[in-house]
């Protein structure tokens, strides 16, 4: 499997308790969120947000990780990245928007967060209204 990490590509092959990474074999032991390598170094998966790319924090360091396969699974749903309150909806159903266009303003932790369109397309349905509270992962709107 080819894996892209912060823009660099790695060829990873899993072989039981070992992995071959770019042709080099290392022993790995995974216990819940901690990975131990053969030289007894420990790597803790602090945070994982799956997506395209996935975002990982390992031992306090951040990585954007991408599976290098054809990405025809374009996002049709826009989800709330964090929990908070919808303070503005800038689009309506049927509207055509460009990539990067403002969709929804979500307030969380005293901060206004502008949620922008991940693609160019037409909005099919708006799932939220102004004033509504949403949880992280809730669908905000759907594209055609």
């Amino acid at each position, binding site marked *: *499997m080819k*894996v892209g*990490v*912060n823009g*660099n590509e*790695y060829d*990873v092959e*899993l072989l039981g308790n070992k*992995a071959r*990474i*770019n042709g080099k074999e*290392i022993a*790995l032991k*995974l*216990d*819940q*969120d901690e*990975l131990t*390598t053969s030289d007894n170094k420990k*790597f*803790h*998966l*602090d*945070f*994982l*947000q799956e997506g395209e790319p*996935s*975002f*990982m*924090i*390992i*031992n*306090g*360091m*951040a*990585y954007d*990780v991408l*599976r290098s396969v054809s990405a025809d699974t374009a996002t049709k749903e826009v989800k709330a*990245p*964090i*929990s*908070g309150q919808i303070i503005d909806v800038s689009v309506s159903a049927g509207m055509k928007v460009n990539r990067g266009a403002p969709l929804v303003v979500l307030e*969380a*932790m*005293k*901060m206004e*967060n502008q949620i922008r369109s991940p693609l160019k397309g037409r909005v099919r349905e708006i799932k939220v209204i102004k004033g509504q509270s949403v949880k*992280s992962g809730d669908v905000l709107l759907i594209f055609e």
Partner: protein
Amino acid sequence: MVKRILIANRGEIVLRVARTSRKLGLEPCGVYSEADKESLHIKHCEEALNIGGHLPSESYLRMDKIIDAAKKLGCEMIHPGYGFLAENLEFSELCKREGFIFVGPSPSAMKLSGDKAKAREVASRIAPVLKGKEISTESNALDLAEEIGYPVILKAVKGGGGRGLRVIESADDLGEAFSSSKNEAVLSFGSDRVYIEKYLENPRHIEVQILGDDDSKVIHLGERDCSIQRRHQKLIEETPSPAVTSDIRAKMTEKAIGVTKEMAYTNAGTVEFLFMGGNFYFMELNSRIQVEHPITEEVTGIDIVEQQLRIALSRGLTIKQEEVKFRGHAIECRINAEHPISFAPYPGMVTKFVPPKDDRVRVDTALYSGYTIPPFYDSLIAKLICHEEDRNKAIERMRTSLLSFRISGIPSTIPFHLSALNDQRFLRGDYDTTFVNGLKPFASREGQIAAALFSLLPKRIQILEREKDKDPWLMSRYDDIQFRDNRSGYLSSSWKR
């Protein structure tokens, strides 16, 4: 004889003030909102009252509820912490009227320092200030901007915390900026007064900690360099500033003391300066305990909260300027519940919280494993403070501490701090308020580990499922019981002196 103090705040600052209150024989009391029922600050109070509400406007900003709680709890004194009501003139006046000792400056000094346009004017008699003044109409603004030259910055007279600021590059942008800044000022600060100032493109932000008592005795505790910011909010602070020579320090601290006296200011305060090309300009005087006060405490060995309480109790300043000794170098990293690259806030459950196990570092926090960070308040979750004999050693200790600081369940700004502490500009001490813009993420070293871990994710889910069958509380238990039980010991262990 004052016996009880109400700490009208939430989170780590309550723990911080409570610790010193107990040291002085005062019983710390608290308040908490409906959303803060699980907050650790409650446990550190002798007694705490639920004041209801979720949003700050329903809870910690409600003066009536705070005063009511202080009465019910039998407190004689109120410490506002930082944020919320800390710099609210009306609140300090109300405390006085209701017979409470307010830990902070007198209402008249707070009135002056809270009026940034007036404060500038008064300070200009003593210290250099940038060109500018308060303006009431758009045409006034245009004339003034023309006179001092673009770029200029629009600021709210009653503002603070980086809100209501507008940088204006040319006359074309002024109209829109003027009205939107006025609107934001009303919404955030309840006043539409704004002022214009010459905008410096890439200054450093350096502040001087001062302490003043009722007998107009004022001392300084040195400077803090707070240039590493995003959206005008500080992320890393250090003292001494790598940019300040002893000559500049002498001038800057002398001016800070002068301004404090000119404003008849008492209690702990911070005189903020912009610093560029060897020149410094007065910006404002903040009348609260600052988030970054610990680094000053570390290098001076002075408990600033203790001095605040002593001054409020009219016991006066017992420290003479010549007794203040500065030892070594201290750095603070503010760890926020935010995405480390976009800085988008990220409330939620903290499944694991394990600070570095190192007696030499100080961690000011109210977090614990299993705590759910509510979405209503500030995203600051922990302050990591390292104090060593020199800057390089402090940076090295900070790096090690950041790498071994485990926070899971939510992302934190730890990766940002590691990137910053590995950036050449930071290492050289050559940075300004635009530092964050040019920052490259520091992570590539272990790229192959990230690739391997990513490939193992399906396997990890199997392991977690298996473990969950054995231990149904795996995902939500308080897995750091020791930290919870030893919390007061843990916090005080960081006080080396």
